[in-house]
């Protein structure tokens, strides 16, 4: 019996120059192998194929940052990222922040404590930006936080509380790491 390649998961079945391609990536720590259209956008793949509705679509130009996810620990605008470009990468969305038992991450607790959101639309992007920042700089000063947070837009203009939330997230992350050390 002839064995045909599995076109959904067989990478060799997606040769160069095709209208679609097969990619492998880790989504919130879970390996995924999917076939995507060459022109597929990461935001759409995450929302439509993987149910990551915490990734917000807004400006579609990489400006507002509501769609921010982490790709290999770096903040990326998923609305302006082709899905093919995450082949081999680790992608993290806001859905991956909380523990499996539902316990909030230090960043989420900090935003909740400090009221770092109003309408909440920008919050998932802000949380991912905060997560990326604290991985690079666990104790950022206010200037650094301001520089990072200025990557994203909060239409409610609650920036002061967001700044405080990031500072609190750094404290909570330090405490959590200290406890686990």
């Amino acid at each position, binding site marked *: 019996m002839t064995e045909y390649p599995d076109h959904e998961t067989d990478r060799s079945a997606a040769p160069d120059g095709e209208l679609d391609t097969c990619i492998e990536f880790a989504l919130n720590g879970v390996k995924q192998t999917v076939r995507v259209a*060459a022109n597929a956008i990461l935001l759409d793949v995450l929302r439509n194929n993987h149910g990551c509705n915490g990734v917000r679509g807004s400006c*579609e130009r*990489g400006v507002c940052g509501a769609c921010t996810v982490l790709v290999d620990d770096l903040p990326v605008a998923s609305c302006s*990222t*082709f899905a*093919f*470009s995450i082949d081999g990468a680790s992608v993290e969305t806001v859905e991956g922040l909380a523990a499996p038992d539902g316990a909030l991450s230090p960043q989420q607790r900090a935003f909740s404590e400090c009221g770092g959101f109003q309408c909440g639309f920008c919050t998932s992007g802000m949380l991912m930006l905060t997560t990326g920042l604290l991985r690079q700089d666990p104790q950022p000063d206010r200037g650094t936080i301001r520089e990072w947070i200025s990557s994203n837009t909060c239409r409610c203009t609650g920036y002061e509380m967001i700044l405080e939330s990031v500072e609190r997230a750094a404290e909570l992350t330090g405490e959590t790491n200290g406890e686990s050390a």
Partner: protein
Amino acid sequence: MRIQALGAGLVAQTQFAMAPFRLHRPTTIEDALAIVSEHPDAVIAAGCSDLVAQIREGCAPNTLVSLQKVDALRAISHEAGVLHIGPMVTHHMGATDETVGTAIPDLAAAWASIATVRIRYTATVGGNLMARRYRYEMPLLLGALGADLVFDAGALSRPVASLWADSGTDQRGLLTDITVRTDDLVWFGYERSMRPTATVALAVRRNPDGTLQVRAQSGSEYRHGFALTADTGARELDPLEVSAQLAQQLPDDCADYTGSAEYRRHLVRVLTRRLLTAACAQLKGTTTR
């Protein structure tokens, strides 16, 4: 909702729609050149932060060549008085690279000031240049430095100013290197405090006879950069005189709806004077930037 049909070959009811294309992902410069040669109308993709916007705006490539896997295009080196910057170098890489920081420290500092943290991790110098958006700043920084754009692994070399002079069809090919001479460079600075109305990048070089020449690039959000040059004929800079000389060269079509040509000349005179004053101070050893 807006209708987006311009050249896309489809009518999309929203900006979410993306024109389909065939994807090529070479891993070497040679392979990339071969694909581009085979598909002369191919669109070249670097960091893609601008390209996705272009496609949403109606650009409809049949073939897209992603350079993401061509590691050789991320190289940075400084050899024989020339800084080489690979077009796939991201803004973050360039701004924090030790070679760039040693060769032209103020280029690294200026590079770190553009865009946002998130965009700097993704966007590349090659994409910033080849997008030919007036508001992008790498054409200003590299234009003032007199950088050359090397296409097709050395087959063609063009100054940065050619981005505005050539039409899209005149400048086909693959950007493979960006070169900046550093052997005669004595100072470089960038003033963006008046962005988006006016920005100025300025480089001072020393001629073989010891006199100084100044090359500036003035830009704004809405008009392409203009090159301004002054061969001072002197070994020291006179900020007042040279800034006036540079600003005077701005043509009338530097005006846009945010300011007249006269206003823009005034701004450029002020910004270049600031930069030249800083250059003078550093050259005299009274301060360092």
